[in-house]
């Protein structure tokens, strides 16, 4: 989904990356040690040319073969030290960095699980997933390489330049010549690359969305023979991405070109100057050799700056994307406070009886909807007495599902309050509230685990069989491994009706005091529906329940019916009362009466 084209606050890459510090902190000792070790290893590499110089100017020039042995031994020792130091660096960070990555992922998962449902309505899971995988992998790589090596390279270059200046300051200055143009190029590059990198990442996100939809909507695409136009849309997006990637490549090519050419030109100039000095006897051959091998040893540190910067940029973008999700405020486990509509007493609670499930003056508007838009639900006053079941009936889109989501606080009320046995739901911990209220959703989701776990959701196992039989989900016993059969994305596919029955079993398994069922029988055939209804009647006898219903048969499960019309409760009564007294209700239940279109339905 394209929700991610986020407010790109124009923060510098460095400031963005600084936000990683709290996660990196636990690994800081190792990380700093590793950086120090890497600097040491790099400097060891720089000492090697000096030994060469000593060899060439001393023993080699003098023909002292014994000293040649000594020089070679030094070289070997330095070489082994370099190898071990590089290995030590990697060993030091291997486990801690994997740990940082894992912690950040666990942190994201924990946070996302606790963000308001409204947040999840806006964000496609693909976009969240790419933050938990690709982006975090980029960050780990950034901590392992660019972060260390930008430092290491800077120190190496500094030390190398000092060595060269000490050997021959004139040649050293020549080598330093391209420093300023290279730095300027890098700065310009960084800015542009940041922009293109973010664009590419977002385009990948859009592409993922098309892929996701083309898979999820495959029946529609096939049913209407639209796979060609779908493929065209996909091709357009991939072509756009290709364009962006090529822009990225052009930037990379430019910086590589500049970074390769300029230092080489300087080395060439130093070579010519050095030769003149050697010829004039002002410089020893050994010094020139050492100087040039130092210069060449610096080539990689300089050249790699380009891609290290590119990686840092991408890491900065990844950090931005990570915190886009992390910065959202989770549901507060707020201090008990009474709802905003505190003053308004419910007309339905004249007597002391505030038992059961009560809606007082409830108003709701999605938090991301404009302030001035009409609320989805308004002035909802409803009292469901203890043990009573109330059916909620209303035209398509009247807000029934939204109303059911308010009871377990999946969405927060805009105004008014809901009480369970007199207690405001905002005054009790969510954990407690949700243990009292069980919900069966219209769109039944199964998780990749056994049927039993899907039903129990952490509840006591004894109740499993009873719950399955209430939901008429006896087909479970005929599955290959019975209730232990794996279902969901990674297991057996179940039909819509089967999934709906599992979801129903899930809702009734814990014998909750309050039950909210959102059109729980829509995918069942007539026979199964009748059987489920019979079994549900027993459960509903002593449970306070709110049941969204479309059909007379479902409505008859309930003691009373509330009619929801354009966001308000317009009538409450028994099925037969309303059928007689309320035209809209009669219309909804039988399709007869004035349909508003002045046409007699058959």
């Amino acid at each position, binding site marked *: 989904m394209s929700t991610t084209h986020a407010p790109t606050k124009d923060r510098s890459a460095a400031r963005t990356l600084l936000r990683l510090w709290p996660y990196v902190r636990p690994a800081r000792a190792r990380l700093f040690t590793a950086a120090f070790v890497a600097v040491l290893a790099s400097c060891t590499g720089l000492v090697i040319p000096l030994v*060469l110089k000593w060899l060439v100017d001393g023993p080699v020039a003098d023909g*002292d*073969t014994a000293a*040649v042995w000594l020089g*070679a031994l030094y070289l*070997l020792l330095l070489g082994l030290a370099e190898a*071990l130091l590089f290995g030590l660096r*990697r060993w030091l960070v291997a*486990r801690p960095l*994997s740990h940082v990555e894992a912690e950040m*992922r666990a942190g994201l*998962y*924990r946070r996302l*699980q606790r963000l308001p*449902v409204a947040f999840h*309505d806006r*964000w*496609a*899971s693909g976009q969240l997933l790419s933050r*938990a995988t690709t982006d975090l992998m980029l960050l780990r790589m950034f901590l392992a390489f660019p972060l260390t090596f930008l430092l290491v390279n800077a120190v190496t270059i500094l030390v190398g330049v000092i060595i060269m200046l000490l050997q021959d300051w004139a040649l050293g200055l020549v080598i330093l010549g391209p420093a300023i143009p290279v730095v300027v190029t890098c700065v310009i590059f960084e800015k542009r690359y940041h922009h293109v990198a973010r664009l590419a990442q977002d385009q990948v996100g859009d*592409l993922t969305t098309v892929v996701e939809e*083309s898979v*999820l909507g*495959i*029946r529609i695409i096939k*049913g209407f*023979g639209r*796979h060609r136009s779908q493929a065209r849309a996909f091709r357009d997006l991939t*072509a756009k991405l*290709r364009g962006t990637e*090529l822009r990225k490549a052009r930037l990379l090519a430019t910086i*590589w070109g500049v970074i*390769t*050419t300029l230092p*080489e030109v300087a080395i*060439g100039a130093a*070579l010519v100057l050095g*030769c003149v000095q050697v010829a004039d006897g002002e410089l020893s051959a050994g010094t*020139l*050799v050492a100087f040039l091998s130092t210069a060449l040893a610096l080539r990689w540190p300089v050249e790699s700056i380009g891609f290290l910067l590119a990686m840092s940029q991408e890491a900065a973008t990844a950090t931005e994307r990570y915190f886009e999700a992390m910065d959202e405020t989770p549901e507060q486990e707020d201090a008990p406070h009474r709802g905003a509509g505190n003053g308004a007493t419910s007309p339905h609670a004249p007597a002391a009886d505030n038992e059961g499930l009560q809606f007082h003056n409830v108003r709701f508007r*999605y938090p991301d*909807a404009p302030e001035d838009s009409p609320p989805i639900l308004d002035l909802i006053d409803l009292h469901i007495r203890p043990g009573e079941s109330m059916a909620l009936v209303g035209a*398509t*889109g009247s807000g029934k599902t939204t109303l059911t989501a308010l009871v*377990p606080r*999946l969405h927060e009320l805009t105004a008014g309050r809901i009480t369970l046995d007199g207690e405001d739901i905002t005054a009790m911990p969510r954990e407690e509230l*949700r243990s009292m209220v069980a919900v069966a959703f*219209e769109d*039944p*989701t199964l998780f*990749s685990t056994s049927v039993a776990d899907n039903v129990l*959701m*952490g509840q006591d196992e004894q109740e499993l069989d009873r719950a399955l039989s209430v939901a008429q989900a006896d087909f479970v016993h005929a599955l290959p491994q019975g209730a232990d059969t794996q279902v969901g*994305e990674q297991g057996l596919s179940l039909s819509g009706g089967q999934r709906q029955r599992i979801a129903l079993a899930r809702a009734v398994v814990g014998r909750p005091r309050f039950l909210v069922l959102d059109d729980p029988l829509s995918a069942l*055939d007539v026979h199964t529906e009748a059987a489920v209804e019979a079994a549900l009647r027993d459960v509903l006898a002593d449970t306070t329940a709110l049941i969204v219903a479309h059909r007379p048969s479902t409505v008859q499960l309930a003691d009373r019916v509330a009619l929801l019309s354009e966001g308000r409760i317009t009538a409450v009564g028994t099925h037969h009362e309303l059928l007689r007294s309320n035209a809209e209700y009669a*219309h909804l239940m*039988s399709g007869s009466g004035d349909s508003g279109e002045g*046409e007699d*339905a*058959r």
Partner: protein
Amino acid sequence: MTAPTTSAPTSTDEEPRPPGQERADAAFDEDRLPAPPRATSLLLRSLLAPMKARVTVTTLLLLLQQAAVQAGPLIVAYAIDRAVPAFRDHDHGPLIAVGVGYLLCALASGALQYAFILASARVNQDVLLDLRGRIFRHAQALSIDFHERYTSGRLISRSTTDVESLRELLNEGLQELVTVVLSFLYISALLLWLDLGLGAVAVASFVPLYGLVRIYQRRAGRVYRKRSTAIAAVIVKFVETMNGIRPVRAFRREAANDADFAVLNKRHERVNGDALLEMARYVVGSRVVANTAVAGIVLWGAYRVAQGSLELGVLAAAVLYLRRLYDPIDRLGMFLNSYQSAAASLEKIAGLLAQTPTVPEPSAPRQLPALESADRPGREVSFEGVSFAYRTGGEVLPRFDLTLPAGQTVAVVGSTGAGKSTLAKLLARFYDPSEGRVLLDGVDLRELAVPELRRGVVMVTQEAFLFSGTVAENIAIGRPDASREEIERAAKAIGAHDFISALPDGYDTDVRKRGGRISAGQRQLVAFARALLADPAVLILDEATSSLDIPGERAVQRAMTTVLRGRTAVVIAHRLSTVEIADRVLVMEHGRIVEDGTPAELVAGTGRFADLHRAWRDSLA
């Protein structure tokens, strides 16, 4: 996760899978589709084949670039051994040549570097474009029964993460490998040419290095496979939690999920650390070999210079080359990393691409006969000796014959698993029959090209998925060239106009943006408007009214008797209210049609339908 997506990965067909199918399903469950041997390398080759010329040019650019880069130390050797003495003799020519030569090499290597990066990026991007397109088109061409078994998550990761790992290989790895190999070759040749003995020592050091690379490759391969399994488990858990956030919250699973996730995440962390440590070992090993070789060569070279049997410049050049020779070893390790993961990904992609569509498009399509007149838009459907069984056995529909005259509205009823959906899918050509033919006005469905087929038959199912975009665009899927007026007319006919007009931007409301929340029933209305707009000769409704309220269902029925009048219609419904508009009712049981007649006949009779109808009537009382 967003309101409009359904939790669709699971199958919606009503028939439980027969036991014979379990073995075939194992391949799906383990995400290892059978691919013919060497499918991976064939795939890679076929991707690169069309760009042979450009690959050659790119390689050439790299060859030249490396030549320019590697010339440097040679020039240094020449400068020390020839130009310096010549300069002492007041012959400035050689030194000027050195300066000009070095400058040219520098410029050439920079320019060639630029050209190479661009050229290779073009090749890479075109390969990726091609591969992405292939996966996408192939996935779209595969039949519904494939999609029902190969979960959406897998298909998505084929075209995202798996393509991504190939992208990494192409972008960084491949260039790295070619550079490494080329510089090995160049430098070895130059060293041998400079001095046979020193060169031979350098080349000899390749033997232990090669051994190290092989060991690393084997060990890292093992770790990498473990790592990709570990991350896949993390991904599944993550996606499921996010897609099922409502039940997760309502049933207070957050803490339990945190614990489950921690286990998977820890496992990945451990393997990830193992992989990094494996790399550390490799780096130490290869550096030790390289630096020992350098020390050895310097020892021998310096000894010989001291004795006078080798020139100083040659030794200097040899040392400069040696450092370059061993520089890319680390990068070779990184290449092996990306190669390992790309190979695993390509294998999976090849497995997917090797699946043949079981419902192929005809090679020589036929046209449907012209309609007799515009006011008789329906077509005749006949099933001739049709039976259907899953390929692995398990018969769903035994052999049957059935003719639906043009313009007839047929209701199909029966309990779960009776085969109603399979019948519908055969008619919509989501499946092909195992035996027999399904004919539309006498033409076998298998002989119709897709556009022609979809002018003939359209199916509306119970899962009303909305694509991102506006409401109008979603309706227009039925007929992409429809005008706004036609779209609105379709919406009005189905009773969807009112709620659409009430959305923040009306028909232009983005279904995934602010205020675009659309309920399940409203989504079904959009799906109907879509079908209405498509205006097919035969319309199939498979449980398409399950989330509608009764007025909504009535509006649909009204539309069928007015706007869709004269079309052939097949209506599958749990609810008998739908049957009221039918001319004919088929009752199915265990894959067979057990009753067939007009509603009035069947209600008056004593069969199953009469029982069902009585039960339903009672529920309305």
